[in-house]
């Protein structure tokens, strides 16, 4: 019995090491990192993440060996209060191991990339000390993300959820004392705060969902919740609707959906590996994971599903339009990420969980690839810029101007100077645009196919979004890699080292082949069958040539259109975007993110600032400080001490008493001194009188 159990749970006992390995890496770098070389620090962190990947593989193998049974490993009890019982229980099933593999796999590649990237980044920003801190944060992130995906209860998931939010905050504000161009400013810290606060709003929704869940369903543990949900959904359907919609607020925060997506573009203030790992591949997909994990709740309430799907689809289209008007290479990718997250959320909202997870996985590959390649491009321009600064002489004060290595208007022609990066970027772009046979084609098509069958509105929105996706990626390619260099730095850009390009090649391979995970042919629904263990009732759809054809046609059209606008006649130095004139106000809107940030400022943030100012200025400063403290407390104290106690009690009473004592002594001594007059005879008389008195007393006493 004991033996057979050991066999059936396989490598499950390793589950806590998903978290322990990154924490060990973190501790080593934290404690000994000061005496280690940069290479050692980077490789320790990468090894820690790699070890977590190995554990993930072993866990996935165990799940597969157990035929998809849910495996649990309780590490320690956490909270046992009344009816509430939460343990640190790790859960390995097909869904969580999928997430683990993505997180630790892509995470490890990005760790390795970061060894090279941060080496240069800390030198461009002239603060070598932060190299170690970066890897400490990155390992902390992996640990937290592992808690998120491996928890067996909503509360443990929430611990990871908050933990990755913290890491996101720390890493967005990594260069906290400068802006993205390295000038002294608080811009990066403000971006970090924005991300954290926006996520707090989402977390608030998650917490409400959690409270409601415990109140009405009596548990946080996944399976108990799902079990209780079926009956509650029958009697009080509003409970499930409320839980799922509150959860959607959390999803909107973490996975950057309307209306809380605004933090993600600003999150690009973090170093590029962070943008790739946290703000594209893993953390932001936590919301999609949450919905998929709660699929049994969402399936019970189609109304909520519809709302989730519409939020996702609207986000997908909205963000895609903004991406068209951006000039920063990372901002384009950020909006693209929001848009792609919209695809995933729409998919899981429609109940197409496999499609959503499939897109999550492929997106992790190609978006990480794109971000890291963008990082390589930025480094290339930085190198070119440095090269010019050191070999200056021509142009004089020309290089004194602030140079933005992320601005696509400064690029152009990088195809020749950075060929490796160019090809990697091309692969990522084709995968994202959904061109056959790259990974993105298969996963996006699956979503579109599901949408076309069940939700026509969503299908139309997503198709338009897909068109824009291909268009803005085409625009980016033409602007960055084709044409002529629009800045001297771009002309002198240098290709990155293999430590940077090698992980990209792995990701590129995955972006090409990732579609094989779940091909829409009989017998190739691997991911679908795998996830079926956890999700049940998975719909395996065959390839629909019509849907696939339309989406491919849209993507190709978009690329051709982008070539007509940006590729045929490349941008020259200082030329405004060719779309600016024909589109007019619309382009201004896209360029300025449809003024959503400004709207939020006007409607929420400024009101909040007003309230804060009122509280600070009037309530705190004028009332509390000036009136209560200064007037009432200090005033009373002053009055008491100077007037009551000093003037009256001390000066008048106590001083008078002791002065009087002194005067009385003086008077007494002055008076009695006269007795001692120096005349012997008067002394004799005194003695005589004394004798008479004593004798008189003795004689006359009764």
């Amino acid at each position, binding site marked *: 019995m004991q033996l057979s159990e050991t066999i059936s749970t396989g490598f499950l006992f390793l589950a806590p090491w998903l978290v322990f390995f990154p924490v060990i890496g973190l501790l080593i770098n934290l404690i000994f990192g000061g005496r280690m070389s940069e290479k050692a620090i980077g490789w320790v962190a990468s090894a820690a993440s790699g070890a977590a990947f190995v554990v993930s593989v072993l866990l996935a193998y165990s799940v597969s060996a157990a035929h998809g049974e849910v495996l649990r490993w309780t590490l320690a009890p956490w909270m046992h209060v009344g009816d509430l019982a939460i343990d640190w229980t790790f859960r390995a099933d097909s869904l969580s191991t999928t997430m683990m593999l993505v997180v630790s796999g892509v995470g490890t590649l990005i760790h390795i990339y970061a060894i090279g990237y941060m080496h240069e980044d800390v030198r461009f920003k002239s603060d070598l000390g932060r190299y170690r801190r970066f890897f400490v944060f990155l390992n902390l992130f992996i640990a937290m993300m592992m808690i998120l995906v491996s928890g067996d209860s909503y509360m443990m998931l929430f611990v990871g959820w908050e933990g990755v939010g913290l890491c996101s905050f720390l890493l967005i504000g990594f260069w906290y004392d400068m802006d993205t161009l390295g000038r002294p400013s608080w811009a990066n810290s403000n971006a970090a705060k924005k991300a954290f606060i926006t996520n707090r709003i989402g977390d608030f929704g998650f917490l409400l969902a959690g409270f409601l869940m415990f109140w009405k369903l009596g548990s946080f543990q996944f399976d108990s919740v799902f079990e209780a949900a079926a009956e509650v959904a029958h009697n009080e359907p509003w409970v499930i609707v409320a839980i799922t919609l509150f959860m959607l607020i959390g999803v909107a925060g973490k996975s950057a959906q309307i209306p809380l997506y605004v933090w993600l573009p600003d999150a690009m203030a973090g170093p590029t590996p962070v943008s790739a790992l946290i703000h594209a591949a893993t953390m932001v997909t936590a919301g999609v994971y949450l919905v998929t994990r709660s699929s049994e709740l969402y399936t019970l309430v189609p109304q909520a599903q519809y709302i989730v799907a519409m939020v996702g689809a609207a986000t997908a289209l909205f963000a895609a339009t903004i991406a068209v008007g951006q000039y920063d290479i990372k901002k384009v990718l950020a909006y693209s990420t929001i848009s792609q997250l919209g695809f995933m959320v729409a998919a899981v909202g429609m109940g197409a969980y496999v499609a959503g997870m499939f897109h999550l996985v492929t997106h992790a590959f190609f978006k990480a690839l794109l971000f890291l390649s963008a990082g390589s491009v930025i480094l290339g321009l930085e190198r070119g810029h440095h090269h010019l600064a050191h070999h200056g002489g021509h142009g004089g004060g020309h290089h004194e101007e602030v140079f933005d290595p992320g601005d696509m208007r400064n690029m152009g022609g990088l195809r020749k100077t950075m060929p490796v990066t160019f090809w990697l970027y091309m692969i990522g772009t084709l995968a994202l645009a959904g061109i056959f046979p790259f990974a993105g084609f298969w996963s996006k098509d699956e979503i579109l196919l599901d949408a076309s069958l069940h939700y026509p509105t969503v299908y139309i929105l997503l198709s338009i979004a897909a068109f824009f996706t291909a268009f803005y990626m085409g625009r980016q390619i033409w602007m960055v890699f084709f044409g002529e260099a629009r800045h001297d730095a771009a002309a002198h850009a240098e290709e990155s080292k293999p430590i940077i390009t090698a992980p990209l090649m792995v990701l590129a391979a995955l972006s090409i082949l990732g579609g094989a995970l779940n091909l829409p042919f009989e017998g190739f629904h691997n991911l679908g069958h795998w996830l079926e263990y956890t999700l049940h009732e998975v719909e395996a759809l065959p390839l629909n040539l019509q849907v696939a054809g339309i989406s491919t046609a849209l993507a190709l059209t978009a690329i051709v259109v982008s070539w007509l606008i940006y590729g045929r006649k490349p941008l020259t130095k200082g030329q405004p975007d060719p779309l600016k004139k024909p589109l007019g106000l619309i382009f201004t809107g896209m360029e300025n993110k449809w003024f959503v940030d400004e709207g939020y400022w006007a409607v929420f943030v400024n009101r909040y600032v007003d309230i804060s100012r009122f509280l600070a200025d009037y309530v705190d400063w004028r009332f509390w400080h000036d009136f209560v403290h200064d007037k009432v407390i200090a005033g009373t104290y002053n009055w008491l001490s100077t007037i009551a106690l000093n003037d009256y009690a001390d000066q008048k009473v106590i001083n008078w008493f002791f002065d009087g004592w002194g005067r009385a002594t003086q008077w007494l001594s002055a008076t009695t001194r*006269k007795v001692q007059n*120096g005349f012997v005879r008067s002394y004799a008389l005194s003695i005589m009188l004394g004798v008479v008195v004593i004798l008189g007393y003795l004689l006359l006493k009764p």
Partner: protein
Amino acid sequence: MVPVNYYIILSAILFTIGALGVLVRRNPLIMFMSIELMLNSANLAMVAFSSAIKSLSGQIFVFFVIAVAAAEVAVGLALIVQIFKSRHTINVDEMNSLKG
């Protein structure tokens, strides 16, 4: 036998004269004589009582008092001689340098 009252009255009269002498006179020699008078008035009273009650202890006291008085006069006269040497007067009213 003369009654003891008479001795006591004489003793009181002598003591009073002595006391007045100490208080009134300014010459230390006279004052010493007055003191001797007071001592001897007391001696007289003690001798009288001693003979009245047939006990010798009073008379032994008197011997002591006479001896002490002699010693006292010796010291006192020596002091007076020294004071006279330094101040050329022995008027007790002028010797008041210890007044408060």
